[in-house]
């Protein structure tokens, strides 16, 4: 994060603009973001990952096989082939092409990451908005509930959910989505409390606007940038959580290629087939790194004065 | 001569270009003298003081000239030797009393730090000295207040603490950067009064940096007027107030609200704005705001002229032109 007072006078000027014109926040963010090389790199990687995921997904929908091999086709005669020209990343225990599986896994990781965040975001924003705007008892009840959830380590909570619900993509999304609700609720509540006292919100109240309208029209646009940053970083957390569940054997149902699940399987073969362990790990790290880069960039762009929570 | 600044140039290297915050300025301060440096914000007066103290932060850098303290070139001193000088012989008061004190240290610890550092006193003696100096700057029940944290004090009190800190080691030169700007008018007067008293008591020189000519008239012996990193005019305080020569100085003087002036005239304002430091006019930096600007002013930089000890940078007073514009 940047110093409080930048030596560049224009940056200070921009910070001032945020306060005055909330609706131009996203645009201004984008402008600043473009200056940030790391964030652009992150965005670029995410773009590539998204293209891979979409291509794989669409071709699957159309019933075409565009990956070098069918990622889920087990061929026991090809078990554990070392990386070579045909199988760039080698094959796994069941003779499946690791390269194809890792590309295929992009689809799952991004999908779980984004949808899980969407779930926690939606519920968290609603909870946080109600708590922050209504205040009083409602606030207390909601935030206490959030405190309780926070008091249980999220990975344990997710494991318990998965153990109860059983394995599966949908269940993993729900488990990961549920456990990070409190974080969003807290952030949104905090942001709302800080803008609630602003003049234009008061003005809207005096003019008799409905509560929901005030939240939607006046308060949300002001907290949206905070949420965007959090959600971006949230995707990276969700991808890591998915991998952790997969690693513990609680992730998706077979034969889906999920990176954490691949790592979990590879664990028994760290000496005989280390390539089955290296590549999925790299794939996870790169994906998480990309979202972290973008998230950091967004945060800096949003507010040079901001700090890590 | 206590301090001599010779052709000092300080630049800020920014991505979009180089800003000359201080551009080739020279001046001196004598022992026990109060020199006021006046200018609007961005005129380079604070940068001048930071350059003298060696406290410039990146991307700022002294790129030319020399600074002599007691005839010693400060640029030849090592870091350590400079640190010995700072806070000891040359000390400084900053303009933001609210933020210039360390919020998590007790007042006494902040003052004692510099006493113990420079005067090599024991802890006990340092504390005694601290309380003494706090009393000197007019903090009531100093022994108790010394245990306070900055946030427990008012702005005026904090500025007194700042002053006490600066005076703690009996400096010979005190640089006071807008010491009164952030304060109430009544407190302002008290602080200025304090500075004046301290000058008398310890016979130290003061470099008073301010944008407020009112303050100058009350305290200073000599005045330098800066604009866009350049000295525009320099004279003793009486001469400058009675006979300002530069149109900029004249403008500044006109914009002081005068209590005895009961006319209904609106307060004078210099029209226009300080030029963008990255895009300076070719000629006199004040040319685009000057009511008496001439063709030449926009093309050529006037030189600083010394007219019987009254220095001025303006073509209106160019010796070759022979003219001298009177009000």
């Amino acid at each position, binding site marked *: 994060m940047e110093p409080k007072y930048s030596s560049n006078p224009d940056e200070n000027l921009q910070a001032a603009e945020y306060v005055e014109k909330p609706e131009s926040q996203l645009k201004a963010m984008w402008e600043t973001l473009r200056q940030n090389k790391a964030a652009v790199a992150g965005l670029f990687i995410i773009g590539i990952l998204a293209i891979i995921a979409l291509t794989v997904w669409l071709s699957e929908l159309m019933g075409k096989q565009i990956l070098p091999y069918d990622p889920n086709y087990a061929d026991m005669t090809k078990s554990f082939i070392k990386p070579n020209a045909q199988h760039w990343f080698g094959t796994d225990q069941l003779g499946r092409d690791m390269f194809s599986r890792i590309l295929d896994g992009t689809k799952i990781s991004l999908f779980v990451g984004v949808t899980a965040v969407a779930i926690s975001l939606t519920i968290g924003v609603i909870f946080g908005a109600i708590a922050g705007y209504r205040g009083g008892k409602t606030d207390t009840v909601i935030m206490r509930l959030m405190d*309780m959830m926070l*008091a249980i*380590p999220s990975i344990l909570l997710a494991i318990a959910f998965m153990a109860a619900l059983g394995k599966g993509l949908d269940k993993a999304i729900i488990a990961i989505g549920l456990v990070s609700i409190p974080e969003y609720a807290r952030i949104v509540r905090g942001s709302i409390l800080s803008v609630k006292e602003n003049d234009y919100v008061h003005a809207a109240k005096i003019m008799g606007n409905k509560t929901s309208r005030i939240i939607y029209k006046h308060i949300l646009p002001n907290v949206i940038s905070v949420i965007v940053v959090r959600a971006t970083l949230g995707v990276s957390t969700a991808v890591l959580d998915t991998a952790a569940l997969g690693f513990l054997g609680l992730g998706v149902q077979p034969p889906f290629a999920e990176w954490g699940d691949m790592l979990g399987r590879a664990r028994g073969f760290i000496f005989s087939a280390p390539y089955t362990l290296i590549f999925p790990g790299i794939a996870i*790290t790169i994906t998480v790194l990309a979202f972290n880069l973008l998230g950091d960039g967004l945060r800096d762009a949003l507010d040079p004065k901001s700090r890590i929570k | 001569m206590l301090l001599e600044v010779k052709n000092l140039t300080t630049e800020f290297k920014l991505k979009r270009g180089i800003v000359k915050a201080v551009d080739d300025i020279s001046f001196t301060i004598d022992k026990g003298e109060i020199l006021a440096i006046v200018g609007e914000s961005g005129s380079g007066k604070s940068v001048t003081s930071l350059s003298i103290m060696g*406290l410039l932060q990146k991307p700022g850098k002294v790129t030319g000239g020399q600074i002599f303290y007691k005839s010693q070139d400060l640029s030849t001193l090592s870091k350590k030797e400079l640190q010995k000088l700072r806070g000891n012989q040359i000390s*400084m008061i900053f303009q933001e009393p609210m933020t210039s004190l*360390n*919020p998590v240290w007790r007042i006494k610890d902040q003052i004692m730090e*510099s006493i113990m550092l420079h005067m090599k006193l024991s802890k006990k003696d340092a504390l005694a000295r601290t309380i003494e100096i706090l009393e000197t700057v007019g903090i009531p029940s100093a022994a108790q207040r010394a245990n306070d944290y900055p946030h427990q004090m008012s702005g005026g009190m904090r500025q007194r603490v700042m002053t006490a800190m600066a005076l703690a080691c009996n400096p010979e030169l005190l640089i006071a950067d807008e010491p009164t700007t952030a304060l109430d008018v009544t407190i302002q007067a008290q602080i200025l009064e304090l500075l004046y008293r301290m000058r008398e008591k310890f016979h130290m020189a003061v470099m008073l940096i301010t944008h407020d000519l009112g303050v100058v008239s009350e305290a200073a012996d000599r005045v330098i007027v800066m604009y866009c990193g350049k000295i525009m005019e320099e004279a003793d305080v009486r001469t400058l107030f009675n006979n300002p020569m530069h149109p900029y100085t004249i403008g500044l003087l006109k914009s002081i609200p005068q209590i005895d002036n009961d006319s209904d005239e609106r307060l004078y304002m210099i029209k226009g704005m300080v030029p963008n430091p990255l895009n300076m006019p070719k000629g006199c930096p004040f040319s685009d705001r000057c009511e008496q600007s001439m063709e030449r002013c926009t093309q050529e930089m006037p030189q600083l002229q010394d007219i019987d000890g009254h220095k001025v940078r303006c073509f209106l007073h160019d010796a070759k032109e022979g003219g001298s514009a009177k009000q």
Partner: protein
Amino acid sequence: MLRYIIKRLLMLIPVLLGVSIIVFLIMRVFSPDPAPIVLGQHATQQAVAAWRQVNGLNDPIYLQYYHYLTGALTGNLGTSYYTKLPVVKEIMSRFPATIELAIVAIILASFFGIVIGVISAVKKNSIFDNAGMFIALIGVSMPIFWLGILLIILFSGALHWLPSNGRINPLLEPAHITGFFLIDSLMAGNMDAFFDALRHLILPASALAMYSMAIITRMTRSSMLDTLQQDFIRTARAKGVPEGKVVRKHALRNGLIPIVTVIGLQLGSLLGGAVLTETVFSWPGIGAYTVECILKSDFPVVQGVVLLVATIYVLMNLIVDLIYAFLDPRIKYSKKEV
């Protein structure tokens, strides 16, 4: 201050109640039946039914909760279905291992995080800064279990430098006084045991510390950059304070305030991270054990662990807030609302 602390401690009650209800619901309503696992390969349907009856699993859920609650209030958290040992005993025999690991990890993370963060801030945009920040970024992006396995492959598998699993060579194990082997072995004056325990700690603690270290490094850097721009730092320099002292005594003391919060929060999250680290390194702690118990539907143990962890979480938050007040004289809790 005391009133504030008491008030905060009282808050523990609703949190624990809520947490226990959440866990109760997840485990007892949705989780699979533990009986076939407990009773083993030869379990008959009748035996399963009888076992459920004896263990009260056929009661309505609110009654089960009531029984649990009244038991818990008298300090009885029940017995593990699987080992038939009291839950408290099961937890306490593993808990010191996790705490020892977490504390060593947080010390590593804080030390390296703060040092790297401070140097990065002071030498902003230098090669050190860029390298440090890149490592920190990788640190927060790497799955902890993957890092752990890579460490094992390198330091145990290839180099044979360090043990890959366990806490100590069992024959060197010191008498359990505190349960922390580093301390116990020192108290017993057994240096072999001390160094053996230390060698066992290095890899898991490093793996566990990596993420926190990365977070602390980033936080320290930004906090220090912020602080170093403050006016009072300029004041200190103007006083002639040497630069090293300016950084350590003036800037770090102020910059430390947000860092302490982060360290406190990290200590909480380390308990979560311990789940994966312990699994990878066969560390005999509470994390891996809890996962096992969740998967075996050993309800009483899971409930007990979660209560313990939630208590720690609340206490950690309180301690962080108190340290905060200690570090920052501007904060006073006595009048403030919770």
